[in-house]
């Protein structure tokens, strides 16, 4: 099992954002974490990659790096595309003397080809479209050959065609790296096209767990409301 989460709890300002949740992600599997905005989806990712501390519970990940693709790409705007992608290889203490400049060029070129963006090494993030920035952030995430890849709303703010392209790359990267992935999203196409399984969060609890097909067929008030994007149902947005 690549990621094992047990009884995870996170409290912000006395509000339980995650309340005793447990789930697993198998090797090579892609799990979607879905739910309304503010339901704690991104918190799950930040806890897994260690950006914030949990209040209770356990997170066990298989050995190897954990990579994260951020919602708005989070590319380093003072560095060009090549330096963004090779950042970890240049700056990490355990990797910095491992690669020559030629090696780094080769790796950057390979990763860019993998996300369909060959030849943009010298460009800066501000010169790229949102979809291209997202793909560069994919390339940066996989540069250390991670065993776990976390995607925080990878298609947010993109047009439908760019979203489809990004979804294709999520599937492709999963196949190329055989990494376990967690995709936080509330976009139906991203769920159905990328995920093997999903969990739905509401009020800090998992209210549904199954495959995308099961969610579409399920006769539960939570899944029905989510799939039909209805205002009527058990889930209410915090205003």
């Amino acid at each position, binding site marked *: 099992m690549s990621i094992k989460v047990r009884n995870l709890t996170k409290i912000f300002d006395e509000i339980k954002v995650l309340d005793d949740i447990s789930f697993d992600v198998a090797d090579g599997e892609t799990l979607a974490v879905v739910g309304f905005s503010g339901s704690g989806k991104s918190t799950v990712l930040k806890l897994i990659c*260690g950006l914030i501390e949990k209040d209770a519970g356990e997170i066990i990940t298989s050995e190897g790096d*954990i990579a*994260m693709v*951020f919602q708005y790409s*989070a590319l380093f*705007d003072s560095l060009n595309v090549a330096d963004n992608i090779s950042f970890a290889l240049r700056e*990490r203490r355990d990797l910095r003397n491992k690669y020559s400049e030629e090696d780094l060029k080769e790796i950057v070129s390979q990763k860019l080809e993998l996300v369909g963006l060959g030849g943009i090494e010298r460009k800066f993030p501000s010169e790229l479209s949102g979809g291209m920035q997202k793909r560069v952030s994919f390339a*940066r995430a996989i540069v*250390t050959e991670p065993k776990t890849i976390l995607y925080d709303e990878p298609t947010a703010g993109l047009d439908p065609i760019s979203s489809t392209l990004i979804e294709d790359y999520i599937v492709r990267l999963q196949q190329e790296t055989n990494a376990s992935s967690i995709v936080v999203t509330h976009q139906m196409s991203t769920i159905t096209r990328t995920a093997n399984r999903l969990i739905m969060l509401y009020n800090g609890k998992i209210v549904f767990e199954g495959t995308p097909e099961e969610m579409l067929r399920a006769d539960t008030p939570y899944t029905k409301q989510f799939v039909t994007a209805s205002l009527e149902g058990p889930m209410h947005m915090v205003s």
Partner: protein
Amino acid sequence: MFRAFGNQFTDFVTTLGAIIENGFITLKYIIMGQIERKELMDQCVRFGISSLPITLSIVGMTSIIVTSQVASEMVKQGGGNFVGLLVSILIVREVGAVMSGFAIISMIGSSLASEIATMRVTEQIDAIQVLKVNPIRYLFVPRVLSGIIMMPLLVIIASAFGVITGAVTTTLTTELTYKAYFDSAWIGIYMKDLSVCLLKSVAFGGTIALISCSCGYQASGGAKGVGLATNKAVVWSLVAIVIWDLIFSITFFF
């Protein structure tokens, strides 16, 4: 009102704690020699070269203001032989370092704080952490070290410029000659003054960079958060410079 005061106090303690903690971590990396040379060079250029014109302007103009007011008065009172001495002591002991500090806060401190705050609110610092690179080592070490290295150089150049500007002002506003001005200026400057000036500038440079980086690093929210962090960096740096100046004055000149 009590809640507002309480929040302000909490914010003060949190900020001070963060600055001290980040300072120790930065110092540890500097002592361990974990310094990114290319980034250090870039920051030195930013700290030194880009801020030189504004620093020279501020110190030069302050020197003109002070000299034009005291030189003619001193000549009238029969103290013409001491104009160079007074101006040089003033510039070397105080004006050079303090005015350069103010110039650096406005030019570099604010830009460091807003740069790092923007990186914080756009998750770039989170990305650095996820890529297993220590953000303090990557962001703070070259910036703080460049402050420590470049500030003394800036202060030396600015102080020399201030003394020369004082000489020009003196000869333009009185009948004193350059020779009379510089003869008296050399008498007034001791090795101790120069040493304290350099020590002070090291403290100023490191402190401005550390406070600015720390305030940016603590930022949260969006554009408003960046603005608040920049504002906090400028205010804290100004106060820190004055406190350092007080400490140096009490320690060396009381």
